[in-house]
């Protein structure tokens, strides 16, 4: 009698505490006979659906069931779960810095013995296999990518006026001048984004630093080995200044940039009659912000080119992001799933189902993307000489989500000199 009461009490209590903490204990795959592999990701649902549909039958053939969970705040959660010794088998991280941190602490399984890395290197976009490397070992496999530093334009008006995509940054300046000489406004530019105002300006900077300095200098910059107050960053700033601050270059002028919302800043390209502006630099995701009517006939209305390199045919790395898969709980089943995730044709379903999926494999057939717009993005990515992860995401948050945004905004709004802005950012870099 007493024991029954106790058992009841204890189970009621534990049920309650489970409810209160609001978490289930997750799927325990510790049993040797159990062949379930959990994957955590924060990717968009249509991409997950596409990958899940492609992976399930291949895993089944190996006797493995894959359980996908869409997780919000995956970066914080994975750190907590690893500390609590309860990680998922595999997780897709949008920030490779976290994979590197955890790998340095020995919490992530290296993929060197598991995947055929040399072959994979030939198959993948340059640099995408290196985003999560620690001490020469590879800890992450990028499965889905996105590209930044793309210049969108209103296709019909752009082509009717006889404009062509520039091959160098100098040609970009020439194109800007030509559009202006024709009596048009060349650029749409908006960096307003609520509490994150300023990030589109940092994207501009990152891309220009990458184009002028190359990948090695860029990586030194985001590690603060190259300062903000340096010739390279000033060169990038000068080009941005030329594009954004020259009278008549930007719709609404310099004053309008800081209060123009990035999501709608490009919409003036599609004004009925004459475009309000002709060029808009953003990431591949921005098409989702275009007016509905434009989205419905995207291929007819929108063209794009990647920000060109500093010198024609020279180093031309692209900036972007991606979701990178790593093994947090090692098992033969997890390793098998990882191998399946590395296959180029795994992305076929996701690419075809209308999601924003972009395969990091450069041998992925371009025709696999139903939209010409996506094909154009893929061409920019696959033709690059290297891949740079979003720099402000990789910097310490005090800079990357703090002073870099704020000081750029203050500079662009004309409330701060470039000199002060760059020095302030350098000063805010945490001493560790």
């Amino acid at each position, binding site marked *: 009698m007493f024991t029954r009461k106790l058992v009841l009490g204890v189970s009621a209590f534990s049920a*309650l505490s489970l*409810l209160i903490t609001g978490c289930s204990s997750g799927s325990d795959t510790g049993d040797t006979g159990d062949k379930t592999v959990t994957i955590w990701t924060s990717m968009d649902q249509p991409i997950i659906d596409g990958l899940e549909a492609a992976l399930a039958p291949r895993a089944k053939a190996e006797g493995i069931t894959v359980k996908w969970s869409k997780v919000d705040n995956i970066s914080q959660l994975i750190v907590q779960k690893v500390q609590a010794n309860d990680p998922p088998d595999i997780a897709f991280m949008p920030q490779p810095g976290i994979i590197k941190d955890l790998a340095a602490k020995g919490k992530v399984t290296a993929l060197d013995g598991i995947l055929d890395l040399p072959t994979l290197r030939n198959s993948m976009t340059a640099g995408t296999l290196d985003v999560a490397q620690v001490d020469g070992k590879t800890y992450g496999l990028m499965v889905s990518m996105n590209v930044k530093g793309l210049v969108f334009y209103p296709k019909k008006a752009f082509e009717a006026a006889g404009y062509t995509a520039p091959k160098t940054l100098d040609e970009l300046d020439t194109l800007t001048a030509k559009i202006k000489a024709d009596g048009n406004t060349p650029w749409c530019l908006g960096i307003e984004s609520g509490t994150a105002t300023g990030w589109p300006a940092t994207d501009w900077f990152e891309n220009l630093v990458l184009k002028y300095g190359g990948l090695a200098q860029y990586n030194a910059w985001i590690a603060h080995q190259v300062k903000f107050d340096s010739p390279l960053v000033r060169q990038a700033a000068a080009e941005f200044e030329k594009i954004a601050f020259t009278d008549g270059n930007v719709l609404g002028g310099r*004053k309008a940039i800081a*209060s123009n919302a990035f999501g709608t800043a490009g919409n003036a390209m599609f004004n009925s009659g004459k475009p309000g502006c002709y060029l808009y630099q953003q990431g591949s995701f921005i098409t989702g912000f275009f007016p509905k009517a434009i989205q419905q006939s995207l291929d007819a209305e929108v063209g794009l080119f990647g920000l060109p390199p500093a010198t024609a045919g020279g180093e031309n790395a692209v900036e972007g992001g991606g979701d990178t898969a790593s093994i947090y709980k090692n098992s033969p089943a997890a390793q098998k799933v990882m191998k399946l995730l590395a296959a180029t044709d795994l992305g076929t379903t996701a690419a075809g189902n209308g999601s924003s999926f972009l395969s990091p494999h450069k041998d992925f057939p371009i025709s696999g993307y139903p939209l010409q717009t996506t094909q154009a993005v893929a061409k920019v990515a696959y033709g690059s000489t290297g891949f740079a992860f979003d720099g402000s995401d990789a910097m310490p948050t005090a800079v990357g989500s703090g002073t870099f945004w704020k000081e750029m905004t203050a500079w662009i*709004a004309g*409330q701060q000199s470039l000199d002060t802005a760059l020095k302030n950012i350098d000063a805010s870099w*945490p001493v560790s």
Partner: protein
Amino acid sequence: MLSQLFSTVLIVLAGIAAALAVFLVLNKLAEALPGRWEHRVKPYFFVAPAVAAIGVYLIYPTVVTIIDSFRDSNGEGFVGLDNFSKLLATPAFRQTLLNSLLWIAVVPATCIVVGLIVAALADRLSSGAEKAAKTIIFMPMAISAVGAATVWRFMYATQPPGTPQTGLLNGVVTALGHDPIPWLQQTTWHANSLLLMVMLLWGQAGFAMVLLSAAIKGVPTESTEAARMDGAGELRIFWRVIIPQIRGTLITVFVTVLIGVMKIFDVIYVMTDGAFNTNVVGLEFFNQLFTNYNFGYASAIVVMLLVAIVPIMIYQIRQFRAEESA
């Protein structure tokens, strides 16, 4: 959604049950003591949980924060007064302090004035019109500050000239044939901070109005009648008869709004996140802690705020006591 609702209800019920159980157990313990002691100890037993809660959730964090304000950015190693001196040495932080002072100087006083005018004038309306006017002015109080600030962004929103304006003010400005004005970027004379204050006034005036209106209605009609008989004009009655009698309420409203303004965060976080020189202390604290992970700076800012607020609270409590005993 349903399961969340269910667990919320369950947690609330479990919490109440647990609190009841604690008091029942304490009561039983006290009753177990011999007669005289039971009565001596019981009050302490009943007060103890509340005191413990304040100790754990208020006093302990305060002490830790004060200690942390003398530590480095990771909350380790003592650095003396470094956090304070470095913060006060940065021009940006001095501007932040200046902005906070501006809020303190403008908002509570304006709030009282607006509340008082509305309360005094509404008092003279027919009861139906009074209710309607008060309801409208009180309504913003029912909206969360974050929601209200998000909506108010549309007041000041700015698009480049030649594109349709989504902001109300710029809609008017462009309709009159002018170029849109980037309102929140107007730093001359801290105009943008003043625009943010308008939003808070819009939200807080109702609060001042309700309390002041109740106080005005509490003024005995005998005193105003007597003044009228003696030939005093309405304005004179207002200043010489009504105001002295509602002084206590005026001070309470003023101090409450003042403390609220010193801690102001949400309005600015949502509208500008401190850009364009609109930063204030409450927001800077948040950004130091949750963006920069600088525990030292964050704690130092809170300590400065604490030092500024405590005397005001002491004044309010004294005032309150004086009223009670009067």
